[in-house]
């Protein structure tokens, strides 16, 4: 049977196993939308803004490990999708974003709703395609999914001019058995010689640290990471993107590292003699001043992307390879090796870390404190949330103080449970991302922890949640200010709160939630907090928006001292350096 371009597209998406398409129609995409109407393999989720479509597809991908799919129209539809594409690009999330384009003969004429999507998205995609011939659509879709999901994953854009989906022009559907691109060979196995060298270095370490990032989660290698550390018994830290890659409850886990990492994790990095970096990229929020980074450490760096190795910090033993295969090879080599781990030295090192933890570690029992301050501490909200959900929820967040508090105080024991925009730091990510997660896991608890600043950047998606019955729980940590901006202004700008407050003009979030057909709750006293959360989580089939007013003067600590600081230089509380 011959198919139109739109039908070819839908058939190809079905063959890729796509369950959901997050999108928004418009002129250039109308042929495709007609094809969507005529099939039932993929469910289309109508968002309220294209940014929401890309974030929802992104959240779906982060939670499931499968690629997310978004569909937008040309011009403003395409440009609205850009922030979400950039978000996925920075965190290496596999997305396939399909944009309608004006008809081929109109391209370049400044026609209605025309924009150069390929040009605009170029720096923020792994790859992009423009459809020149309708019969290429199935192959392009196959290549797009292959590129998006292999190697270091990332978003792929497919721009389809409207005439290429013309319903009156029909073509044969052909699916290739396998995809081969001469210019792209993503499967890289670690070099055995490098594995040998790494093994030797790691086993002779006295102060080893495992520094594991989002690559462990993207590479589905958390089991291998745990297996490696069953042998090494080294202290482990996760990046913001890596939380959940190593179980937070494990005694060797030190918490997150970096800008707002724990004291013990940052001290361990600074004082290590061997750092085993796995699927992490030494980003500037981790290293602080690169020239002052971990002065005694030899670096073993495992990453699938060679460009991530020795980009910021020179690797002594680079291993280019997929994380899972590299860890398996490393474990095998360690088991075969005759070098004995210096257990005494490593025990002493772990003891040292316990001492650091005891000295300036985070207080995970703040919520039990008998002293009830007049205002709720935001950290307590996260701790109560952790207990109310038994640590099992999928938690999405937006960007700012609340994001850091979740990273610090919600203990993630499994990968793919913590869903946030780490690289780009996109406010507005949390709610649409939670929609994607909830669609993938309708029976699981999905919580969006946000702030009154971030939530207003994609608040319109509350309407989508009603349409598709997505009973997400939204915890709005409301400090009536752009908290992280304010914190920096407090610390670096003499407390001049330039354009970071709006307490006189915030909406009534309870009424707002209600007007979108959801349940709204407001909490201002710590004594109400637990009860309100329990009540909200008992409402299994309703979206509940819990507006929690917290202490606006709270800061996130620890915080690396910058500029000109190393990882051991931290603000540990207000006006106090460690």
């Amino acid at each position: 049977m011959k198919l139109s371009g739109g039908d070819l597209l839908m058939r190809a998406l079905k063959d890729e196993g796509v369950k959901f398409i997050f999108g928004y129609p418009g002129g250039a995409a109308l042929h495709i939308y007609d094809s969507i109407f005529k099939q039932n393999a993929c469910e289309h989720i109508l968002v309220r803004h294209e940014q929401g479509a890309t974030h929802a597809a992104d959240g779906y991908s982060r939670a499931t490990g499968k690629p997310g799919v978004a569909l937008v129209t040309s011009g403003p539809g395409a440009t609205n999708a850009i922030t979400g594409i950039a978000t996925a690009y920075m965190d290496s999330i596999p997305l396939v974003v399909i944009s309608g384009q004006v008809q081929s003969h109109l391209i370049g004429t400044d026609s209605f709703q025309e924009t150069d999507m390929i040009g605009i998205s170029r720096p923020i995609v792994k790859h992009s395609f423009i459809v020149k011939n309708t019969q290429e659509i199935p192959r392009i879709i196959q290549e797009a999914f292959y590129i998006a999901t292999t190697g270091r994953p990332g978003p792929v854009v497919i721009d389809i001019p409207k005439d290429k989906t013309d319903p009156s022009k029909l073509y044969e559907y052909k699916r290739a058995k396998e995809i081969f691109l001469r210019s792209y060979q993503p499967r890289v196995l670690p070099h055995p010689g490098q594995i040998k060298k790494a093994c030797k270095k790691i086993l002779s370490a006295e102060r080893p640290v495992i520094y594991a990032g989002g690559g462990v989660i993207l590479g589905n290698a958390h089991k291998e990471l745990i297996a490696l550390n069953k042998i090494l018994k080294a202290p482990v830290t996760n990046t913001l993107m890596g939380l959940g890659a190593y179980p937070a409850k494990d005694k060797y886990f030190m918490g997150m590292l970096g800008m707002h990492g724990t004291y013990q994790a940052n001290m361990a990095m600074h004082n290590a003699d061997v750092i085993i970096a796995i699927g992490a990229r030494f980003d500037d929020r981790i290293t602080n001043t690169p020239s002052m980074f971990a002065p005694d450490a030899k670096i073993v760096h495992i990453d699938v992307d060679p460009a991530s190795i020795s980009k910021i910090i020179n690797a002594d033993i680079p291993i280019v390879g997929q994380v899972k295969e590299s860890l398996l090879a490393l474990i095998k080599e360690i088991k075969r090796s005759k070098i004995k781990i210096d257990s005494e030295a490593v025990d002493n090192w772990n003891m040292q870390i316990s001492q650091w933890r005891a000295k300036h570690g985070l207080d995970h029992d703040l919520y039990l404190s008998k002293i009830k301050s007049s205002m709720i501490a935001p950290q307590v909200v996260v701790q109560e949330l952790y207990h109310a959900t038994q640590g099992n929820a999928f938690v999405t967040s937006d960007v700012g103080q609340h994001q850091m508090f979740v990273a610090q105080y919600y203990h993630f024991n499994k990968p793919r449970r913590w869903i946030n925009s780490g690289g780009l730091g996109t406010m507005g990510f949390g709610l649409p991302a939670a929609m994607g997660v909830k669609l993938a896991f309708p029976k699981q608890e999905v919580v969006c922890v946000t702030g009154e600043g971030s939530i207003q950047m994609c608040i319109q998606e509350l309407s989508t949640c009603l349409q598709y019955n997505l009973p997400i729980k939204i915890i709005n940590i409301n400090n009536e200010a752009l908290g992280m901006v304010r914190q920096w202004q407090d610390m670096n700008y003499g407390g001049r709160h330039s354009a970071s407050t709006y307490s006189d003009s915030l909406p009534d979030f309870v009424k707002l939630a209600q007007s979108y057909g959801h349940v709204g709750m407001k909490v201002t006293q710590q004594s109400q907090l637990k009860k309100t959360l329990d009540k909200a989580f008992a409402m299994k089939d309703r979206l509940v928006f819990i507006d929690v007013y917290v202490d606006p003067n709270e800061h996130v600590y620890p915080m690396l001292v910058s500029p000109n600081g190393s990882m051991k230089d931290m603000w540990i509380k207000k006006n106090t350096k460690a």
Partner: protein
Amino acid sequence: MKRIISILIENKPGALARVVGLFHQRGYNIETLNVGPVFDGTYSRMSVTTRGSENDVEQITKQINKIIDVIKVSDLTEGDHHEYEFIMIKFRQSEKIQKILKGLNGKIHEKNKDVMVMSAWGPSGDIDIAIKAIGKANLLEIARSGSIGLHEGEKILKI
């Protein structure tokens, strides 16, 4: 230090823009750029000259290699290589300019009472020196091809 990066890239629409864009995105500069299809025409060879430390160039080549349409990348300046550049110059009658260009394998393309067009080729360092020596007097136009180069000996860049 000046580097010549040779790139084999799929001859597809937009492929060149991906490479050029990357230099800007990653904060590096392109000094000269030359590109054209080679062999069966399904791919092109690009020659890009840039300046940077060894670390910079390593990072540039790694990032270029990540572009899906890029088949091969090599920093020619890492090893022994041949490097040449071609220029065309239009000028008013000038013995001085003619002499300089003849010293550079110069060839006359057009000669009349008002203007002269000549081409010349040589290592880009020599071209730079020649252009400087020519000065501004009587000079009308210059077009430079940008450096192109090949590895010395058996070493080749192929798909």
